[in-house]
């Protein structure tokens, strides 16, 4: 973020969105493209979600330019950089095929969203940020515990433990049942908190009320 001008910087958002969209379409048209490591795979639902995210970000980018011009007096350096990093981490969430890596990326999205909610710097936005951060962090911590339980379900049966989606599908019938059930509950509650499923949605109205346009998030559950 070397650009010193507060007025020019917001245009980075739609331009990055455009570049992301072009690269996404280019990737989608070449299904034989593979990442060198097995952790990054783009599966069929991932293709759809990646395209939707990219398109939404590109369209919301133009709205953001107008919004930041309306708020012209305030420095938007943190806002812009966090929003761009958010796009990158969101792409990593869609690409990752390793439960641990996906957890890292999802936690990073919630951390990068906190400065976006806090942009207005009023007591109300502090309150919304606090509730969002605490509830989402605890929820995601539960999801991490669920991932560990899932890894332990195979270790408990004496199998080689792995969190890659392919290995998990392959080993699924032989995993230890009680650990598997507990892992399912923890993962549902954990990622459900981040998605805003019904009993764990309490942070959502506050955060969206304070940060209007940034509801483009979606946590892809594979």
């Amino acid at each position: 973020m070397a650009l010193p001008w507060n007025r020019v910087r917001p245009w980075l958002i739609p331009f990055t969105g455009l570049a992301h969209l072009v690269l996404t379409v280019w990737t989608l048209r070449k299904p034989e493209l593979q990442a060198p490591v097995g952790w990054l795979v783009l599966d069929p639902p991932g293709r759809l979600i990646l395209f939707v995210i990219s398109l939404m970000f590109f369209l919301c980018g133009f709205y953001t330019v107008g919004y930041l011009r309306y708020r012209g007096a305030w420095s938007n350096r943190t806002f812009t950089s966090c929003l761009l990093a958010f796009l990158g981490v969101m792409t990593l969430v869609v690409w990752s095929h390793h439960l641990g890596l996906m957890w890292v990326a999802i936690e990073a999205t919630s951390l990068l969203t906190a400065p976006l909610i806090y942009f207005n710097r009023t007591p109300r936005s502090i309150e919304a940020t606090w509730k969002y951060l605490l509830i989402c962090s605890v929820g995601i911590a539960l999801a991490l515990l669920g991932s560990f339980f899932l890894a332990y379900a195979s270790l408990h049966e004496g199998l080689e433990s792995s969190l890659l989606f392919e290995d998990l599908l392959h080993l699924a019938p032989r995993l230890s049942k009680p650990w598997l059930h507990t892992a399912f509950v923890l993962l549902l509650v954990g990622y459900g908190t981040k998605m805003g499923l019904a009993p764990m949605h309490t942070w959502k109205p506050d955060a969206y009320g304070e940060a209007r346009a940034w509801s483009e998030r979606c946590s892809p559950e594979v």
Partner: protein
Amino acid sequence: MTKAHLGLLLVPASLSTVLVGFIMLTTRHKAISQVVGYLILENGIFIFGMLLVEAMPLMVELGVLLDLFVGIFVITIIVNHINEAFSSLDTRKLSALKE
């Protein structure tokens, strides 16, 4: 893969630490105590992670560590701002937004 890990007390220790963290999170009013509760919760999860030292790749462990570090960093900044805006750390004052 041996079953040597079955005799250890790691699972009960981690579950009880997680529950202690939850009690701390839900029963305290001060923001900083809730942050400490969250840290205890994470400690419990990491005690469980001791069972999986061989299973988790180093990159993922480093990513988790970095995320937690940055998370606590951001939360502490917010706590600082709460202290400035409300001149106390009592989260009962954070009640302007209602559903």
